[in-house]
Every structure is written in C-alpha cells, then in structure tokens.
C-alpha cells in the first residue's frame, strides 16, 4: 500500500478488543460504524445460508483480513453476524473515512497488521516519507528527461543535403533535425530558427551538406537529468532544443515547449526578453513576467528548491542586464569592479518580494580608493534606482552599492570583514550576518574570489566569532508550543500568525551559516552549506536530508503566501496555521521540530 494511504489509515484507526464469544457485528444492530481489520485473533462469519441450515460451513477470518465492506458502503446492517471465536484485537477505522481511503489506495486490503503497528512507532519518519512522496509526485520539474521523451528523434547523417533536411522539417512538422554519426552519437543540430539566419538571409545553396550549416557539438543532457536541469540550461544558454543521450546514444530531444507546455510565460522567453532589453522600461516588463512565471510554476507544484533557483537565475540575468545597460552610459574605462549581492540574493534564495541588498568591490590600482569610488558611485546610484523600478525595492537599511559605505576597495572590504570578525558588539555581528552571504553578480569575479578566500581563512580559526554567531543563530526559537501546536503572535497586525521568515527560514539560514564557516564551506546557499558542512562535520546524511526538506517546506509555504497576498507585501511572510490543512499542519510542525533539532545540535557543538 502506498505510504500516503497507509499514513492516512494509521492516523484514523483505533485498536479495539473483543474477548472470545463477543458478537462484533450483528444482523440486528445498526450499520457498521467502523471498518474492521483483524490484528490478532479469529472472527467467524456465518454465511446467510449457513446461518439457517445445519450443515453450516462458517468462514473464519484471521489477522490481516477485514470486514465488512459491503454493509458499510451500503449503510445497512450486516447480513450475518461476525463473532470473535478467539480473543481478538481489531483495528477500526470510522466509516466516514472509508471512502477517502478507497480513494487513496486501491490495494489497501493487502496490508497487514504488522505494518500498521510499526507505523505508529515510526510515524514521525513516515510523515517525512509521505512528504517526500507527495512532493515527488507533484514535481513535474523533477521528472527525468527520459520520461518526457515521447517519440524517436528525427535524425540524418552529416552528408545529407540541406534541401532534404528542410523538406523533412517541413513535412514532419518538427522543430529540429539531429545530425548523428554511425554510432547514433549526436554531432550537430539544425533547428527551424537556424533556417532564417543561415539559409534564407545568407542565400545559402540548398545542395550544401548539412554539416556545413548545422550547430556542431550541441549541448546534451543525460537521460536521467531532471526537467529543471534542462530548464536551467535553456535559461542560461538561451537554447531551445536539448538532445538527450543514454550513454553516448541519442534517444530524443527535449524542447522548451515540452518543459513548459502549460505555462504562459517560459523561462527562455523571459531570458531572451531580458537579453534583448535595451532600456530599463523593457526590463520592467520582464520583471513582471518573472513574477507570473513563478505563479504558474507554483500552481504546477514545482518545489521551492527549484523555484527559488529558477527565480534567482532569472533575477540574476535581469540585474546583469540592468548593470550592462547602465554601465554603457558611464565612463568606467580602466576600472576593475564587481557587483556584489548580499542576503537572500547572495544565497540564491530569492522569493518573490525581495529588497535589494548589494554593494560594489573594486581594485583601485594606482589610484586612491576615494578617487575610484567617486567614479563608481553615480553609476551605482543609477543602478539602485533602476532596480527599484524593476520591482526590487530600495533597501531600508541602505545596504546598496550607491551608498559610499558599501562601495569599497578590496582592501577596505577586508578591513571591514576583519573588524566584524574581531569585534564583539552586536552591531558588528549583525553586519557579519548580512555581508558574509555575498557573491559576485557581475564584473570581475577574481575580486570576490579573493575576498571569499580571505573570509573563509579568517573565520575557520576564529572560534570566538563562531560561538558568537551560533549564539545569534539560537536567539530565536522555532514557534512550537506546549499547550497548542504553534506559538503565534499575540498582538498587532500579525495576531494569530507565524512569521515564516523570522521564526522559520531565517533560523535555518543562520544555523547553516555557522556550520559553513566552521567547516570552511565557501558556498552561500543554505542547502549547499548544510550539505557540504555535513560531510566535514560528519553529520549523518539522513539528518541533513530531513533538515533540508524541512527548510524547503517552509520556503514553499512562504512562496505560497506571497503569491496569495500579492498586494499586502508586509504581511507576506505571515501564516495562520489554522488555515493549513491537516497534512500541511503536521508537516509544518515536523519541519519546525527539525529546526529545533538543528538548533540543539548547534547548542551542543558550541556549549550554549
């Protein structure tokens, strides 16, 4: 039986006891109120005929068997009595849940008592399994490419004349022709879009061989890659067709259409619109498209893991395009600089409504830092305003590249970092928390790399700082209560709700930051930090996976909330647990328990 259906069953049964001789269901009684599954013992059923004749052959039922389905479904008393002929224990599920169970699992009758009882003990583990299974089924984006391929690829050899290829494209109404060698290895691709550039506009001779006009050595993905990997490749490279290989052998082509057949806005469409944008006005439109895309994906059940990645990838592209457009309007010649992203953007964890948190790092060469800064600041301020126009509100704390405090040379940044690492005041710690999640978004990557190396080397040996950071990470506890399931805010606008960011996602992020600095992990993404730090710190894989799933679940709830309450941004991280269905409530509770476990671990490691 399916995990989800079993879990449903296990959470809706009670265990009843019938001493030998008890009539469990009687012909005179009311319709059965419960569905009985024998755990142990024997129940005897006298068939209707047998009950009225002497040569009765009673039917005996033992553990694992169940009764009485038909009477219950038809809401009538049983035709013949069911009697316990030995001391009998029965699992009983109230009749009202029966249709639901039928719905969930067509094979539920096969289940045995053993499983049910052990489920109780392991219910905690199973809730997680159930969660994985449920999200796995929904996740169209985690399907393998193999499962998306519906037909044989249309191929030709490198020696095929161009004219033949064009005819095939036309007759078979396909978007691309794969060129393969004798071993079915893809050596080139030619798409409908290539026709315009390479054939029509260049007045190409149709008797040419396809090998002369095709795109050689196309990017391919293995059959076991997931749909979202393909989506990222499409977004990243701006390509439309991805040949899929099993080993070296071509087995099909996955297109953008296959991946986002149901979506109005496609990842690549947005990506291309961003790349084609020449003005900030153009980019404003694409920013709205990103939002719509996220909405569609959420509707399709794409997980938070994949969504935040896709949103981050597209936002990155958008910000880079803004920078490119604005940089061309300023004289930045001879300057080596890099645009930094901090906070959630720095961690690749952007949800829909995200303030900008950014800065600049530059190499001042033979100039003074102030001289270089005065050249970069006007540019940075224009970019900040442009990003604001594109839906990334200005940072309330003024952590923006246009602020002279955060437009610094490599040496200045290092000094800041050293200061925060050496100081014990809360202000310095707060800075560290925000700024240590930085990454390069645009410009000279070697500048950010050297800063990252510097930070990693200084933090790994600084146990006082780590301990302080751990203390900070433990300041807030997950909102789990004693009397009620959840502790909700008891006053103000957020009354009756949980703040999924402050009391949820952020606590994971804070803990992951400590672990990553302790383990020397340079990644900024929370999940990557946890996974990589776990290897170094020898945390069991199962434990990490549970934490990661918990984090993603809370992120998914945040995204859901942000979509639903689009207009009230300040409420967007708030969730009233009472509005969740039973399953989600339990998973949320379980997720917060995982968080508590992670915090306990941190407290133990740092003796807090």
């Amino acid at each position, binding site marked *: 039986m399916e995990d989800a259906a079993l879990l449903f069953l296990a959470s809706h049964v009670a*265990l009843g*006891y019938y001493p030998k001789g008890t009539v469990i269901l009687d012909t005179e009684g009311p319709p059965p109120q419960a569905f009985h599954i024998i755990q142990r013992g024997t129940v005897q059923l006298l068939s209707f005929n047998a009950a009225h004749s002497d040569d009765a052959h009673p039917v005996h039922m033992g553990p694992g068997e169940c009764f009485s389905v038909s009477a219950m479904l038809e809401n009538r008393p049983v035709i013949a009595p069911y009697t316990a002929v030995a001391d009998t224990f029965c699992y009983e599920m109230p009749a009202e849940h029966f249709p639901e169970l039928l719905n969930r699992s067509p094979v539920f009758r096969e289940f045995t008592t053993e499983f049910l*009882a052990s489920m109780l003990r392991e219910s905690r583990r199973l809730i997680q399994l159930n969660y994985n299974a449920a999200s796995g089924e929904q996740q169209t984006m985690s399907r393998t490419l193999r499962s998306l391929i519906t037909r044989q690829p249309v191929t030709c050899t490198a020696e095929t004349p161009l004219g033949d290829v064009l005819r095939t494209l036309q007759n078979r109404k396909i978007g691309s022709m794969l060129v393969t060698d004798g071993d079915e290895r893809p050596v080139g691709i030619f798409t409908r879009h290539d026709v315009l550039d390479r054939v029509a506009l260049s007045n190409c001779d149709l008797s040419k061989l396809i090998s002369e006009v095709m795109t050689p050595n196309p990017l391919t993905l293995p059959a076991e890659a997931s749909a979202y990997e393909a989506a990222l490749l499409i977004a990243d490279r701006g390509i439309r067709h991805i040949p899929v290989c099993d080993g070296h052998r071509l087995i099909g082509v996955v297109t953008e259409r296959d991946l986002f057949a149901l979506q109005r806005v496609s990842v690549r469409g947005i990506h291309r619109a961003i790349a084609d944008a020449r003005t900030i006005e153009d980019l404003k439109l694409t920013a709205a498209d990103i939002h719509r895309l996220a909405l569609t994906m959420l509707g399709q059940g794409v997980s938070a893991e994949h969504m935040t990645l896709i949103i981050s990838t597209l936002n990155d592209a958008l910000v880079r395009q803004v920078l490119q457009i604005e940089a061309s309007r300023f004289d930045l010649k001879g300057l080596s600089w890099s645009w930094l992203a901090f906070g959630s953007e720095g961690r690749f964890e952007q949800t829909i409504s995200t303030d900008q948190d950014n800065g600049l790092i530059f190499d001042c060469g033979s100039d003074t830092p102030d001289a270089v800064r005065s050249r970069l600041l006007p540019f940075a301020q224009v970019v900040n305003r442009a990003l604001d126009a594109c839906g990334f509100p200005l940072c309330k704390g003024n952590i923006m590249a246009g602020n002279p405090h955060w437009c610094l040379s490599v040496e200045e940044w290092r000094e800041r970092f050293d200061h925060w690492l050496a100081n014990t005041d809360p202000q310095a710690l707060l800075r560290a928390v925000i700024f240590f999640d930085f990454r390069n978004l645009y410009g000279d990557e070697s500048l950010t790399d050297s800063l990252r190396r510097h930070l990693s080397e200084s933090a790994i040996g600084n146990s006082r700082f780590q301990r302080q950071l751990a203390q900070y990470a433990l300041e807030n506890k997950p909102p789990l209560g*004693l*009397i009620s399931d959840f502790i909700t805010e008891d006053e103000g606008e957020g009354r009756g709700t949980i703040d999924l960011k402050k009391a949820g996602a952020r606590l994971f992020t804070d803990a992951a930051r400590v672990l990553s600095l302790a383990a020397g992990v340079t990644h900024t993404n929370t999940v990557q930090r946890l996974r990589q730090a776990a290897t170094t710190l020898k945390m069991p894989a199962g434990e990490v996976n549970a934490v990661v799933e918990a984090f993603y679940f809370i992120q998914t709830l945040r995204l859901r909330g942000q979509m639903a309450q689009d207009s009230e941004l300040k409420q967007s991280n708030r969730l009233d647990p009472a509005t969740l269905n039973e399953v989600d409530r339990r998973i949320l509770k379980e997720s917060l328990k995982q968080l508590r476990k992670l915090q306990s671990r941190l407290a133990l490691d740092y003796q807090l």
Partner: protein
Amino acid sequence: MNWLRRLFLRKPALTLEQSLALAAYRSNAPIAGAMPLDKLRFVVADVETTGLNPFSDQLISIGAVEIVGGRIRLDTGFEVVFRQSQASANANILVHGIDGTTQLCGMEPAAATLQFLEYISNAPLVGFHSDFDRLMIDRAANRAIGFSPSNPWLDLAFLAPATMPDPERKLQLGFDEWMDRLGIVNQARHNALADALATAQVLQVVLASAISQGVTTLAGLIRLEQDQRWLRHH
C-alpha cells in the same frame, strides 16, 4: 548544608508559558471513582532509563498511548526523549536503542515533563510493574518542574492475574510471559512507545475481563488492584 539548599532553594524556574501549562494541568478535576470503565480515558505509559535503580538512574524517555472507550487510539501516541547531560553507557544504549546524540539532543526536561502532563491530563495512568515507571517519572518531574503528577496509577502486574487467574496457579508472570499468554506481538521491545502499545493491549484484555466479572468502575478496578497487592505480599 547542600541538602538544605536543595530542599528549600531549588525551585526550578519556569517560563511564563510553562507556568501556564502547569497551571492548566493542575486545574484538571480529579477523575471520579464512579466513572464506568468503558467510558474512561486511560493513559498507558512506559519509560526507558539508564538503568534499573529508581533512585540513581535517569529517565531517558517516556512513551504513552491512550485508551478511550476501550479502544487504543493509534493516532495520538506520545513519545518524548529527555535531554541528558551525558549519554548513557553503551550497554544501556543497546537495551533501548536511543543513541547518545538523540539523548543529548532530547527535549529540555521541564518542557518534556509539561508535555507529558498536558498529554495525560487527569487520566488514570497504567503500566506493568508501574511502581518503577511512577518513581522514575515522579523523580524526573520533581527535578524538572518541582511537581509530580497526581494521577492515580494502576499496575497491570497485579490487575492481570486478578482478572485472569492462571490455571496453573503460578502467581507471578512477567511482562513477556503475559504477552506470550495473550499472544500480543511487540513491534519493538524496549522502545518506550512500542512497549506502551503492547501494555495497552494487556489493559484492553484486563478491562474486558474485569467488566465481565462485574467490576465496572474505576474505583472498583483500583480496589481490585489493591486487594491483589495485599495478596501478593501476604
């Protein structure tokens, strides 16, 4: 003077919320002795500990299930691991399978105790050789919150032979022997929750036998248990 200080000054500090939880528990009305057995809510509890000495060993975990109206609720099982200041010995871990990390990462004792109190409410508590469970729980609760549960306890080690006399007149069957005799399968012996579930099944049988013998109220069941205790000791 240490013991004096312990006696008078060591009042564990509870948070406001914890005090409220404790107050909520204490405001439960005691259960009436006239309550019919087939309507009562029982909580069957089992503990795992660092050893068998109730005065020096520590409580590691409590598992519990409830019986409502004669039926074991499988959807509301209770299990809590008390945070230990140090992990118990390996030989002990092999008994209950709660590893060192789990012990160290367990729930803070006051919170764990209050959760247990919230779960049991005013239900009579049931165990097998329950004097041990009771001592362990009372001592841990006293240390954690300065208060121990006031619920009545019923010991199946006495109630089972009282309601189901052994034909061979062998007076004292152990837990495992009762399980064998009643054919109860334990999914994970020495897991507090699994043991509680198995014990609850013994209670179901005991309740059915008691009712068929005319003992139908809680007061009657308590009297039956005490009579059997007396018998055993004389």
